């Protein structure tokens, strides 16, 4: 039986007239969504996925406009509708979910009011009926005590709860299609999992189709039925999720899949696509991917390929033009299964500790001012960001520190490097204690051996400084013998990170995110450090760019003999790059072990929960176990073992006693259940 698609887009073209000329954001895009199916639209930043979503619901930011093509919803053409008509479709037949639940909700209206407003606008219900319906919805999306919380304001909900409210809002008029634009990107890993499950469940219950726009392939792998891969405003490949991920056809998709780290496979180097997606005003002629494509030939630079059906998918690539018969299609992707990387510290010589942290505590006082405290009779409020942390990092290794937001990993990084003064505990570098400000001042030369790379490529470079000045900043005074010497060193550093010396004269805004991160790395290397603390260095980057940077970092480690402390919330990235991994929860390390051991045989219940929750491309179409609870706040942590409210194995003892760390040869874990040998064996999902 042939279903009529609920949404059909034919040859869509979206333009933005600017003073530099007309920018084409979407160029001849065609796709369709069947009723009830989940279509993932995936691509890196700038590919045009959000713009496609905005064009469908008619909310393009001016001066953007639909210049050509048609959008057909449920058999009816909607791109030419007047605004009044389109408004009736919005919300009622097509729903939308945006990325940030905090800014999507009006802070001055109660949640209930916002839902009932929408219901009343679209369905012919009275206020009372609408409110009853709103209550039902809130319960359906999993808000506990809905009857009470319906009258609460958005700021009284946590991030995950707010996104549930947003979902309720999108669904309340029973739309047939939902456009979800990065619905889980702003949420913690464990909450992400909950939201994905909820979305899928509700949509199948209500019969809505979903257009799931995201850059996260793991989410797509678990949720979507089909997936469309976008590049520079066009669709490059579209097909069933399993096919596209495991047997990709388009060279870009092959490269993309190869550059995504996975938590279950081990590779030495990630597949790297050189260069970056072209900016809108610099689109190459012919196939826009051809400058970066390893399989490109003459035709690709001249003619633009259309979508060609291959098996159950469609690909826009001349390699599959069977009529031409110029080239054979590329062989199926081969993963570079390298020999096990030498894990320094485990083979041969015994590990030499470089950094030793004992009992680190970092408390921040966030109390309201004295007057308010007196009058409101509240006490001091202290954020226990780090609460008794022990860590040892050996020379030459990469120690991955992983955890969700609020667990304190960033604080640990900044304290070790000296940006914060520790409240308590010791930090030593190669045996020299660097725990207090005085000690650091006395041992300046050791202090310079530590450097840091930051998360946000935008914020980590001074926009008003030239790149050469930025990179030269960390060259210590003692080395600045002559300006010629400094300039030569800057050139050398730029070359080391894959940039050219000519880039030194430019300003940061002239570079892409990945290039800026390279500049950051060049700056960090200026003083010839031995130890680099990397605080989420790739979290803000596109997947293919991330692969470039991770490969660069591995390269530099080998060449310069660096030791890394790598902090991330992304388990797959940590799995790829680390020798040993530590898991943090609410200011403490709950478990650490060698990478393979931790990921294949996790001990701590939180580690298990995390591994279970992570959306990964290897988990295509699998059913996941439900994950409970919210990440608690570090101001008021639970007593005893801080994980006990969410732990399925918690006992009375867990509520009162903090577990001590149980050491084995190359691992440690802090859990009562393990101590009491109560924990069942781990079965990977």
């Amino acid at each position, binding site marked *: 039986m042939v279903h009529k698609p609920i949404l059909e887009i034919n040859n869509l073209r979206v333009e933005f007239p600017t003073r530099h000329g007309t920018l084409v954001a979407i160029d001849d895009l065609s796709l369709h969504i069947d009723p009830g199916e989940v279509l993932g639209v995936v691509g890196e930043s700038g590919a045009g996925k959000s713009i496609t979503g905005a064009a469908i619901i008619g909310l393009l930011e001016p001066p953007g406009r639909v210049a050509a093509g048609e959008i057909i919803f449920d058999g009816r053409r909607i791109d030419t509708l007047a605004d009044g008509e389109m408004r009736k479709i919005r919300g009622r037949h097509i729903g939308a979910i945006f990325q940030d639940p905090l800014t999507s909700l009006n802070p001055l209206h109660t949640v209930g009011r916002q839902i009932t407003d929408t219901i009343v606008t679209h369905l012919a219900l009275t206020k009372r009926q609408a409110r009853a319906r709103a209550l039902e919805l809130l319960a359906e999306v999993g808000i506990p005590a809905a009857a009470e919380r319906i009258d609460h304001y958005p700021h009284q909900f946590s991030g995950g709860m707010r996104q549930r409210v947003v979902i309720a809002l999108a669904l309340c008029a029973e739309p047939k299609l939902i456009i979800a634009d990065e619905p889980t990107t702003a949420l913690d890993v464990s909450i992400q999992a909950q939201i994905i499950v909820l979305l899928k469940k509700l949509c199948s219950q209500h019969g809505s189709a979903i257009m799931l726009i995201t850059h996260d392939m793991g989410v797509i792998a678990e949720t979507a039925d089909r997936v469309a891969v976008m590049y520079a405003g066009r669709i490059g490949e579209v097909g069933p999720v399993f096919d596209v991920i495991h047997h990709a056809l388009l060279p870009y998709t092959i490269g993309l899949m190869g550059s995504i780290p996975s938590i279950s496979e081990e590779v030495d180097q990630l597949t790297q696509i050189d260069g970056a997606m072209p900016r809108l005003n610099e689109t190459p002629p012919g196939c826009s991917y051809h400058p970066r494509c390893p399989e490109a030939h003459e035709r690709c630079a001249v003619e633009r390929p259309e979508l060609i059906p291959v098996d159950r998918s469609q690909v826009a690539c001349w390699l599959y033009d069977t009529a031409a018969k110029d080239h054979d299609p590329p062989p199926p992707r081969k993963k570079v299964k390298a020999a096990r990387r030498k894990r320094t510290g485990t083979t041969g010589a015994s590990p030499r500790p470089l950094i030793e942290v004992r009992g680190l505590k970092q408390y921040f006082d966030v109390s309201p001012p004295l007057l308010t405290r007196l009058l409101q009779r509240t006490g001091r409020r202290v954020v226990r960001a780090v609460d008794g942390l022990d860590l040892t990092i050996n020379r030459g290794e990469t120690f991955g520190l992983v955890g969700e937001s609020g667990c304190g990993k960033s604080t640990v990084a900044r304290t070790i490097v000296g940006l914060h003064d520790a409240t308590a505990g010791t930090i030593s570098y190669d045996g020299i204690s660097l725990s207090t400000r005085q000690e650091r001042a006395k041992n*300046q030369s050791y202090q310079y051996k530590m450097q840091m790379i930051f998360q946000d490529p935008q914020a980590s470079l*001074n926009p008003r400084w030239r790149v050469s000045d930025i990179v030269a900043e960390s060259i210590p005074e003692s080395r600045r013998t002559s300006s010629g010497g400094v300039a030569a060193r800057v050139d050398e550093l730029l070359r080391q990170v894959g940039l050219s010396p000519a880039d030194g004269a430019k300003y940061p805004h002239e570079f892409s995110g990945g290039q800026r991160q390279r500049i950051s790395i060049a700056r960090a290397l200026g003083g010839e450090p031995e130890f680099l603390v990397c605080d989420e260095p790739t979290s803000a980057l596109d997947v293919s760019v991330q692969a470039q940077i991770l490969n660069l970092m591995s390269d530099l480690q080998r060449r310069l003999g660096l030791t890394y402390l790598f902090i991330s919330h992304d388990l797959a990235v940590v799995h790829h790059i680390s020798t040993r991994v530590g898991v943090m929860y609410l200011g403490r390390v709950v478990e650490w072990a060698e990478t393979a051991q931790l990921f294949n045989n996790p001990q701590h219940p939180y580690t298990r929960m995390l591994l279970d929750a992570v959306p990964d491309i290897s988990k295509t179409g699998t059913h996941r176990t439900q994950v409970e609870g919210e990440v608690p706040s570090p101001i008021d942590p639970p007593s005893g073992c801080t994980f006990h409210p969410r732990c399925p194995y918690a006992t009375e003892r867990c509520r009162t006693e903090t577990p001590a760390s149980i050491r084995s040869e190359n691992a440690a874990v802090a859990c009562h259940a393990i101590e009491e040998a109560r924990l069942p064996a781990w079965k990977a999902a």
Partner: protein
Amino acid sequence: MSAAPIITRSESRRGMARRFWDSDLAYSFRRSKVAVAAGVITFVYLFAALFAPLIAPHDPYDMASIRILDAFLPPAWVEGGDSRFLLGTDNVGRGVLSTIIHGSRISLGVGLASVILAATLGVTLGLISGFVGGRVDAVIMRIAEVQLSFPDILIALLIDGIIRSILGPGAHGNIAFFVVIAAISLAYWVQFARTVRATTMVEKSKDYISAARVAGKSPSYIMFRHLLPNVMGPVLVIATISLALAIVTEATLSFLGVGVPPTQPSLGTLIRVGNDFLFSGEWWITIFPGIALAIMGLSVNLLGDWLRDALNPKLR
């Protein structure tokens, strides 16, 4: 990854000028006819202010050249007017055009001096307040808050009044200038401080500052080499708007009789003096200075408006 030669400094400077002309800022200026007009007018005023003694047809403060017989002449195009005095004469025989040109010099001069003083004070305090935080920040902000809840004119009047009282009722001469400039600056520093502090606090948390700290740089290095360049954008906008306000405030103070000394009248003083003759029919003595003041204030405001829109990243 070729090994291209490093761009020479002079080449990059030339490129900088070209880049500025091509930039969004300059483009927006060129596009906006209003901004261009306002810019031209302001430039004319600046020119007149700088070269007043040279371009004014008469010197209104040279006692020797004034003849009481020339008093109360209407503008040249009205019956009874004299072509020597294009805009008429005042009650003493001074040419109104000349007094306006000299008056503009005073108005603009006091305005600029006040703004520069206010900006220096405000930016410094704002940087320190935002960067150091803690007690220092609390104290400075408390003072700023209290001062902000009172309108500028009142603060200026108050400070003016206090200083006058201290110096005695006979305070004339150049002291009055400094009093006025001080009064206006002390009224307007707060706006600079608040904005600079807010921007500083935002920038302070950015990682390029952290990187500088990891590299062992001192707080003053960070404040002046890293933060200051990033703070100047909003400061420029506020400076333009404050200039317009300062001009108005000075005019108001002079009109009320507590501004610049009567021996060197600003446009405000001229309006006050001329006001007495409004009812007896010699309207030009007050109206023309009034128009001159209005146009000056308007063009500076327009420039400030354009600047604010052009520098606002959200509106681009």
